[in-house]
């Protein structure tokens, strides 16, 4: 089962912890808000992604099961 990262743009307040933990998958825009591309999280990064989700102060960083094909 693959996972994808979603960012709740309303909750996000640009703390930026996610980009520090997961620079492979998260970049920040010029105002500090995370940009994710919606592709499946590679297996070796899933644990880090879980931690990023847990550490997000706004609970805006979500790791979700990929939907559909």
């Amino acid at each position: 089962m693959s996972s994808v990262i979603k960012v709740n743009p309303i909750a996000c307040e640009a703390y930026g912890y996610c980009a520090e933990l997961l620079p492979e998958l998260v970049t920040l825009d010029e105002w500090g808000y995370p940009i994710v591309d919606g592709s499946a999280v590679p297996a070796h990064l899933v644990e880090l992604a879980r931690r990023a989700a847990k550490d997000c102060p706004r609970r805006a960083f979500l790791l979700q099961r990929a939907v559909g094909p």
Partner: protein
Amino acid sequence: MPTATATDVHESAAHNSAAHNSAAADRATLLGAWRAHRNAELTTHLAYHGSPPLPQRGDRTWPERFAAAIEESGLTGRGGASFPSATKLRLVGSARGNPTLVVNAMEGEPASAKDKVLLSCVPHLVLDGAELAASALGATRIVVCVAADRPDILAGVVRAVKERAGSSLAPVPVEVQQPPARYVAGEESALVSWLNSGPGAPSWRPDKRTPLTIGRRPVLVHNAETLAHMALVARYGASAFRAVGTTDAPGTALVTVSGGVEHPGVYEVAMGTTLGSVIERTRPTADVAAVLTGGFGGSWVSAAALDTPYAPRPLAEVGGVVGPGVLVVLTRRACGIAETARLARYMAGESAGQCGPCVFGLPAVADDLAYLAIGTRDRDAIRRLEMRVATVDGRGACRHPDGVARMVRSALSVFASDAAAHGAGRPCVFANEPSVLPPTVIAPLVPTS
């Protein structure tokens, strides 16, 4: 510069016949009754159209027959997304609980006047559609939403609701609500938020298939024009609806035309009429350079594409969009970059203020465009704009930033040579001319603070 005022709208709605001429075909149009009688009262409406075919008590097959007629008609939503109306009916109809039907008459798009025309001229057609759709869904409540700053629209709705209250034409009770007057307040999740006693701002819905609810009950939000079409389809049949328009995009559509034209207003046109002939009827004040299609979050289309049929698919092929039915005409005596800068500034101010990329990104885009518009020499300006527009696209809870991104990208393409000249410090001579946009939305190009 003419802009769509209430009077103009009524005049043009009345003076311009729909795309076809026979009296029988005119009967199945949105504005036919108004053209014939210039009267919005219930008695006139019933004399012209007859009673709406609401279900008899205990008729269990009626909802499916209604949904099937809507499906066969090929009607798509007229609020902006052009989504098949029958699919939407069935999705909510299959959810648990008695739904609420919401009539979206928020007219949040500043260059649109069709909600005003519908609810001033043919309010009972909209209410027929609402009662029919509500009956098909088993809805127990109809809510008509009119923006808090539109007493003009409210008056027509309240009068019409009172005329039907308690009669057989109002099997489902209708209430009128006034959400805040803001561009994004008419977005469906924002409307539902407000009806749930929330702030009336869009919500983040990662899965759009999750139905919206009021409390635990499902909600169906339909644009006022869409419901008026449903009332016609229920009366005259899907084939009458399909007799006008194209196979892909059947029926008529309301289009609000404004900008550099002598006769701005709301026109009912057959889908598939060329962009050029729609605009020709409004008498452009000079040669047309481009047309803003689909409203402020829509897309500029070059005058070279004026022979494109007005319908979602052909317009998409030339980078345009039907959206909520808005055309703003830009003549050769205006500056596309300056107008785009004004549009972007307005849209930046209309953000709900919830999402960072929209809160910071839209003002940055508006600033870039403003400096470009006044001809600040900056060789990097266009590249930076393209980058910022890509940064905001798709990164809000709602599609507000996406619309701005689309509109600005289309401007950089349609007005490419102008943009280059502006960036080289040579703004066009019309950059300081009065805007063609509605006066309510115009702010100084470059903020003074």
